């Protein structure tokens, strides 16, 4: 069946909507869980009831977010099976294993201990309650690890062997998948973004209390801890953001080039701090890529390769090939051009066709001869399999403006949060935070900003890797199922309504509880 691009577009739009909504709920769960566990540890150690009140209040905000967010990720798994069936089959057990482990963590560990954490106050011992809180928080972060293992594999498909008889990838090295550099950098960066979200939300709500001149002690204590937690998170975000960029350089050079709006690399490539992209620029014309730009000489080369004079390929370089680069194992290679990759992808696809055609041939000798020849072709060319579906060089370029500007939004907001948290820490130290009305304004404004920042990160990661569902192995067009696009649009609308309702419910209940505050809630 020939698959239309409108179906692919509808399916990817639906997936983007679901994933972005899902990510509205996840980061707060990841970070606030840990922060609450730290608060409760304080309570466990000193037995002071005010720590208990603090823990219980933030647990309530956690619970509201958890209840609205839990299971929204399941829909993504449904979408794999229905809209992306070729892809789901092709990934084989690579997805099944991490997602099954994720299911166990999410449903058993996280949900069970969450129930104890929320309902178990004064019903179980203090020690067991504390353990449950820590296990809920750790369980949430571990389940994120497994999801990100699956995502990391799509961006950097390691540890597998393709079986042409079944058209599935089979896992040959579980640990190289679980500990691939892509997974590790994704996990650490995403979790730290969750920590930052939690810190900002706690600071903002506490600042609102200070503005209303209520719950003073509670708020100042929450801000103090959240600020240190946030400073740790933003520092780690810079470190892991850097390791993410290094990994992207090795495994997804086209994504890096799109992040930078870089068309022609050089030895000592500058890093673009800010720029306005030239809409007329294409990979094959001589237009200047930027209408305006502020760049730092040689910095991109240093970020990407740890060497100020190294070469970083741009979009046109990647399409033309011929430059030297180091692969993921550090081996020096000459880059293939787009056309060479397409030719090798076509060879791999032809080899797969030969398998399909001759695997049941009754003539054993002929079958064995053709299949062994096909196997050689497939093994030699499989790493470019997906290029066999691409026609024009443009097909291999992601949306540059979306990737470029999203990356700048994330990094610039990262800069804003460093400043914000340092100022917060300083005002706390000087004990003048409550008097600074402007700071309270910025604290509240920071809540939407931190969510925009985290969403922008995912836009960079996912738009930047287009057209691939699995890097170099399977493009979008070859991944979708033969479902009708009207079906996809119907579910798109259902999701939009369902998720928006959930979001409104979460915000309404959360605002209500925040208004009541830690003193207004009756703790049974």
């Amino acid at each position, binding site marked *: *069946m*020939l*698959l239309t691009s409108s179906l692919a577009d509808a399916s990817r739009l639906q997936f983007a909507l679901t994933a972005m909504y899902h990510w509205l709920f996840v980061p707060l769960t990841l970070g606030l869980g840990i922060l609450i566990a730290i608060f409760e540890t304080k309570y466990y150690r000193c037995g002071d009831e005010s720590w208990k009140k603090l823990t219980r209040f933030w647990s*309530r905000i956690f*619970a*509201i977010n958890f*209840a*609205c967010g*839990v*299971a*929204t990720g*399941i*829909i993504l798994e*449904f*979408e794999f*099976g*229905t809209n992306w*069936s*070729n892809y*789901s*089959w*092709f990934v084989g057990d690579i997805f099944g294993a991490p997602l099954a482990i994720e299911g166990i963590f999410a449903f058993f560990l996280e949900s069970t201990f969450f129930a104890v954490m*929320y*309902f178990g106050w004064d019903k179980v011992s203090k020690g067991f309650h504390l353990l449950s809180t820590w296990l809920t928080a750790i369980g949430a972060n571990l389940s994120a690890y497994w999801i990100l293992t699956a995502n990391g594999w799509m961006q950097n498909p390691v540890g597998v062997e393709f079986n042409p*008889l*079944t*058209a*599935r990838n089979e896992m040959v090295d579980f640990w190289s998948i679980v500990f691939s550099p892509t997974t590790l950098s994704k996990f650490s960066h995403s979790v730290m973004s969750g920590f930052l979200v939690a810190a900002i939300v706690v600071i903002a709500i506490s600042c609102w209390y200070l503005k209303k001149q209520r719950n003073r002690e509670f708020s100042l204590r929450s801000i103090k801890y959240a600020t240190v937690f946030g400073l740790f998170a933003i520092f780690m975000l810079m470190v892991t953001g850097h390791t993410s960029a290094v990994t992207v350089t090795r495994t997804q050079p086209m994504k890096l080039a799109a992040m930078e709006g870089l068309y022609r690399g050089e030895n000592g490539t500058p890093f673009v701090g800010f720029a306005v992209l030239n809409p007329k620029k294409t990979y094959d014309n001589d237009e200047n890529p930027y209408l305006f730009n502020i760049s730092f000489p040689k910095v991109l080369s240093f970020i990407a390769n740890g060497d100020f004079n190294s070469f970083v390929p741009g979009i046109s370089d990647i399409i033309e090939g011929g430059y030297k680069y180091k692969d993921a194992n550090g081996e020096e290679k000459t880059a293939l051009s787009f056309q060479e990759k397409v030719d090798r992808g076509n060879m791999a*696809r032809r080899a*797969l*066709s030969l*398998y*399909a055609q001759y695997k049941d041939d009754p003539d054993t000798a002929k079958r064995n001869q053709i299949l062994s020849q096909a196997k050689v072709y497939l093994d030699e060319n499989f790493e470019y399999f997906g290029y066999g*579906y691409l026609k024009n060089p443009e097909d291999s370029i992601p949306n540059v403006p979306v990737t470029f500007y999203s990356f700048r939004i994330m990094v610039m907001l990262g800069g804003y949060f460093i400043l914000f948290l340092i100022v917060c820490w300083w005002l706390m130290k000087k004990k003048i935070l409550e008097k600074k009305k402007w700071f309270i304004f910025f604290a509240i404004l920071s809540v939407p900003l931190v969510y925009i920042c985290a969403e922008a990160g995912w836009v960079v990661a996912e738009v930047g890797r287009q057209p691939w569902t699995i890097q170099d192995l399977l493009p979008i*067009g*070859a991944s979708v*199922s*033969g*479902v009708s696009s009207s*079906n996809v649009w*119907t*579910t798109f609308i*259902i999701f939009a309504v*369902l998720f928006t309702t*959930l979001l409104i*419910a979460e915000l309404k*209940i959360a605002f209500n*509880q925040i208004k009541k505050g830690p003193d207004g809630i009756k703790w049974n």
Partner: protein
Amino acid sequence: MEVGKTLWLIILIKLAIIFLILRVFFFRPELSRYDTDAEKAEHVIENLTKQP
């Protein structure tokens, strides 16, 4: 209504929508119409090799 109860209600309604409506009427795995893995593989291989 007490918050705990509201949250349970949200979770239950959501799970009902996800599993009883979306799963049953809209999200039938495409390959579930085939009985065996061999048939599923054949279908996917056809999609992967026949595309232009």
